[in-house]
């Protein structure tokens, strides 16, 4: 490099900042599928769809937690009013001043808590008090750090509130030592100021209370050390008269933890009230109901993908956030990998897009398995037309898309209706939750399964009151869906209901009959006659006509059955289902449920899997000498016992490596191992040691110990 300087010296050249383009998701879409021109469109569709879904999920979250937030605010208000009138009453004077504390039980899905707490502090800041502090255990290893963090956050929110006071705060910030005394002074100062200023300026939000409480949220109660918590509570209880403090404990396990962490002398300083968050399973149920069991969003999950997501939720983390993340991943993956996903939008839009399809895209449609099945089922002239004329394909696609839409519109009401019947059966043959029923219906024809059969059997035994209640619920469901299809269904159901009502009148008649027959029985005193009549009675009972109620019940069940057969066909049987259903469960599984040990084993055992080098392709059993050294060493070590003799291992290694050369360099055939091979071996062994497969053993110096399964 040159400089314009004439003198000799050392010059510093800053490297020119290379503009590293951060590849956006859009570019990613474009780059990889350069053949299809619609990738941009697909990306846009994906984005807008995800935006909708996201806002929907946020709304769900809000609604679900509203109750909880309201309760907490009510609790705060109550404890606060006590704080204000403390000095007057005798009873209040006598009572020891406790710190109001809300114990918030949130469940074990720790990943979801952040969102809840964030929202909670927003709600509190909007409605109650500007002074909300949230603390995490890892930030507070000691009481000093806790106070520091607490004061830092409080002072900051003060600055935000009134920008002109900044100089006061910054000056005092340097001076203030972290102690609760300082905090009390600060609080007094702040409230006095706002108290005198509010009438004239109205700067603080009007919803805030007079002398607002200071809310301290302990996000993860379990992880706090007892000493820190105890100290903090003891100290702050001495200032409770000047500083209206409210604590919120975030608890993941059970409220018992409070007694485990705090001794009685400390917990007697608290006035603890319990608040329970909605259980995460219910939360998931609502999310599935609002996102998946609706025609609002064109995108759908296939049975396998849904099963993967639900399994991860139930088996591993209970985290609704992760479920939604998985859902997002499947949306992106679907739009990325399926060229026809461009049609995965609302019906009118999709129709427009079909019209502007190119020849290539029509070919895509033709290559869909479900479309091919459809073609095969047509008459031969139509088949030819479908395979040759693009315009005709477009027209058909148009119709098929409409069919698919109607299928969905019918599917969900009927599914919900069936769920009403199956959800209250003993032992739940078709599952208790609607998601299980949904999966069963997506998987195969549900009416062919044994579970369905047994469920219907059980429905046939329901009592009248239950049946009527269920039918009423079904009517409500069908009414709430706007589809025109169900006009007849609703009529039919209402007819059933009215017939059930009429039954009551007839029922009394039936009773009369049975009484009369019994009377007849009482008349006969002769043993022979009695036997005879009893036999007759038995006969008649066996072949007895069903009562009217039973007949009606059968009719209802048959009707439900017909609904199910008509509308709950699995989605895979629908033509063009590939457009809206995402089915690559294995891809999703790889991303969400990674198996590091298995992956490592695969990489070492079968390097072709990752390297895709034709030379590495080999049969399962044998060891190729073209594989990387570490793979060879790994495979050899699999065959050994707990302790591996290094010399033997080296010998085996060199045999494998020199196997090909062996044909022409037989003559060498000495015991001496090539130095290079030796070095390669040592490197491979130390790599294995780094990966944690072996470790040097103290039992024998020239041996190493195996650490993985079957080892020690």
């Amino acid at each position, binding site marked *: 490099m040159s400089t314009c300087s004439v003198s000799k010296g050392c010059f510093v050249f800053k490297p020119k900042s290379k503009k590293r383009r951060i590849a956006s998701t859009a570019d990613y879409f474009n780059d990889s599928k350069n053949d299809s021109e619609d990738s941009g469109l697909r990306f846009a569709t994906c984005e807008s769809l995800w935006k909708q879904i996201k806002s929907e999920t946020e709304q769900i979250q809000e609604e679900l937690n509203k109750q909880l937030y309201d309760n907490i605010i009510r609790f705060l208000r109550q*404890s606060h009013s*006590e704080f204000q009138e403390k000095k007057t009453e*005798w*009873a*209040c004077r*006598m*009572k*020891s001043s*406790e710190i*109001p504390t809300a*114990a918030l039980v949130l*469940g*074990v899905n*720790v990943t979801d808590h952040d969102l809840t707490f964030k929202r909670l502090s927003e709600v509190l800041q909007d409605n109650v008090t500007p002074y909300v502090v949230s603390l995490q255990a890892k930030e507070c290893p000691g*009481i*000093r750090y806790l106070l520091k963090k607490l004061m830092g956050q409080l002072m900051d929110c003060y600055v935000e509130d009134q920008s002109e006071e900044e100089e006061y705060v910054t000056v005092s910030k340097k*001076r203030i030592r972290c*102690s*609760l*005394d300082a905090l009390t002074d600060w609080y007094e100062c702040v409230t006095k100021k706002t108290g005198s200023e509010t009438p004239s300026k109205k700067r603080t939000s009007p919803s805030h209370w007079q002398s607002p409480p200071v809310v301290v949220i302990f996000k*993860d109660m*379990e*992880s706090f050390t007892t000493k820190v918590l105890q*100290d903090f509570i003891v*100290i702050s209880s*001495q200032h409770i008269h000047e500083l209206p403090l409210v604590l919120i404990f975030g608890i*993941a*396990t*059970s*409220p*018992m*933890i*409070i*007694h485990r962490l705090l001794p*009685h*002398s400390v*917990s*007697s300083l*608290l*006035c*603890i*009230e*319990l608040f*329970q968050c909605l*259980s*995460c*399973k219910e939360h998931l149920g609502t999310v599935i109901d609002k996102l998946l069991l609706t025609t609002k969003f064109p995108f759908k999950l296939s049975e396998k993908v849904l099963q993967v997501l639900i399994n991860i*939720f*139930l*088996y*591993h*983390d*209970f985290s609704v956030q992760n479920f939604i993340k998985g859902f997002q991943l499947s949306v992106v993956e679907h739009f990325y990998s399926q060229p026809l996903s461009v049609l995965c939008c609302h019906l009118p839009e999709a129709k427009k897009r079909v019209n502007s399809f190119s020849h290539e895209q029509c070919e895509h449609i033709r290559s869909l398995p479900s479309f091919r099945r459809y073609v095969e089922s047509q008459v031969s002239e139509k088949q030819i037309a479908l395979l040759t004329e693009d315009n005709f394909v477009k027209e058909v696609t148009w119709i098929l898309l409409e069919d698919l839409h109607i299928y969905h519109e019918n599917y969900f009401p009927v599914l919900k209706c069936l769920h009403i019947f199956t959800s209250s059966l003993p032992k739940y043959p078709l599952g208790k939750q609607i998601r299980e029923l949904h999966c069963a219906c997506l998987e195969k024809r549900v009416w062919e399964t044994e579970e369905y059969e047994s469920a219907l059997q059980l429905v046939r035994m329901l009592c009248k009151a239950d049946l009527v209640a269920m039918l009423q619920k079904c009517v409500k469901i069908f009414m709430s869906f706007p589809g025109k299809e169900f006009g007849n269904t609703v009529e039919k159901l209402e007819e059933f209901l009215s017939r059930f009502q009429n039954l009551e009148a007839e029922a009394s008649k039936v009773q009369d009959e049975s009484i009369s027959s019994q009377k007849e029985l009482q008349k006969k005193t002769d043993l022979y006659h009695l036997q005879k009549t009893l036999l007759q009675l038995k006969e008649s009972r066996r072949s007895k006509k069903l009562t009217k109620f039973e007949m009606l019940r059968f009719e209802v069940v048959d009707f439900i059955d017909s609904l199910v057969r008509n509308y709950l066909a699995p989605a895979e049987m629908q033509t063009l289902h590939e457009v809206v259903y995402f089915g690559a469960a294995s891809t999703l599984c790889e991303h969400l*449920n*990674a*198996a*590091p*040990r*298995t992956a490592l084993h695969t990489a070492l055992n079968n390097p072709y899997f990752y390297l895709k080098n034709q030379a590495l392709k080999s049969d399962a059993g044998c060891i190729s000498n073209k594989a990387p050294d570490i793979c060879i060493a790994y495979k050899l070590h699999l065959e050994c016992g707990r302790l591996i003799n290094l010399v033997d291992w080296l010998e085996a290694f060199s045999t494998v490596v020199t196997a090909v050369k062996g044909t022409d360099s037989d003559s060498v055939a000495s015991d001496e191992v090539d130095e290079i091979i030796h070095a390669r071996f040592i490197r491979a062994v130390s790599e294995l040691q780094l990966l*944690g497969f072996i470790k040097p053993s103290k039992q024998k110096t020239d041996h190493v110990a195996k650490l993985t399964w079957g080892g020690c």
Partner: protein
Amino acid sequence: MPTLEHPEYPEATLLHLESIMPCRESQMSTLLSVFGERQQYSFPSIFIYGHTSSGKTYVLQTLLKTLELPHVFVNCIECSTSRLLLEKILSQLQSLSSKTKHASHISCDTLNQFVCLFKQEIMAEELQNETIYIVLDKAEQLREMEANVLPAFLRLQELADRNVTVILVTEIVWELFRPNTGCFEPFTLYFPDYSIGHLQKILSHDHPPEYSADFYAAYINILLGVFYTVCRDLKELRHLAALNFSKYCEPVVKGEANERDTRRLWKNIESHLKKAMQTVYLREVSSSQWERLQQDDGEPGQVKGLSAHTHVELPYYSKFLLIAAYLASYNPSRSDKRFFLKHHGKMKRTTFLKKHEKTSNHLLGPKPFPLDRLLAILYSIVDKRVAPTGNIFSQISSLVTLQLLTLVGHDDQLDGPRYKCTVSLDFIRAIARTVNFDIIKYLYDFL
């Protein structure tokens, strides 16, 4: 005849002191005589100890305030470092000597500096010829500060060469304070626990204005009868008395009984108090909830206490991980073969046992186990095949953060971490029941 006598102070003040601090006359008179007259040098350091709420702080505070002695009162628990403590003392001194002008902040890092600054502060005329008292409440915190803090405070009079007395107030005995290197021995004063008679007297002392003293004393008598066996903490008793008094008055307010009808009142309140002992005293139910219940006349059983919610919902594999961890913690590792291999053969408990293993493992507590053993047990107790996915490993660490497992020893993840299971048998049985796993069959202790 007044028990307190002191030439310095007028008799009326002393009488007043006596009336607001009943049952502490002897301690007070000792303190007064040790303090002496205002300008006299007192003992350099006084060590006051006694059980919780035996009136130590209250007596000292009222004494110093009523007699208007110059003093500084610091609660050590608020001062995590010696620097905070010293600065706090100095700033209070500052406000003592100059009440009008706003105090500027003093920074003080070491004791040496403190002594110098202390002398400066004392220079003010009104403080010069009086004893200054520095009271350090919760003095046990001093032991956790630097080694020189406690001895220096004990002989501050000598170090500063001023008329000052340091009073340490604590709940533990002097023997636990005394440093190894020895130090100045303070004058120790013990505050004994209040007896039941004392408690009765003190609690009846402040009766509500609407009711007569006798009526309230009868109430306190009943209250003490119930609670005295479990709680002698005056503060707590006062709190409980205030909480339940409205219930006691109920028949009187309603006109069903008059104030003298003690038997009837007793019947009304006794079961109520017993319930209070099980709930509100243990803080199972908060005081405000308790009051609301009283107002609504609801059954206390309606509100569930904190301990009622023991159920913890866990993901499926977390449950099995926890069960596996429990088995690994409480079974000797040699018995794994017997429980988890199909053809383990017969293994009699008696022959199989070593001598020390005959004691119940549940009495000995959980033992640490390596990660591999946990996973091996997990694979054999879950019916389905479990893939060792990342999620399984992350669940183990999330169980650790939930404090259901604890990591033992070093946290070097590469070198085989070891865990302990910290949940109780009842808890694990409840968990095992939800997944239909008969844990008792797999526990060595119940073989």
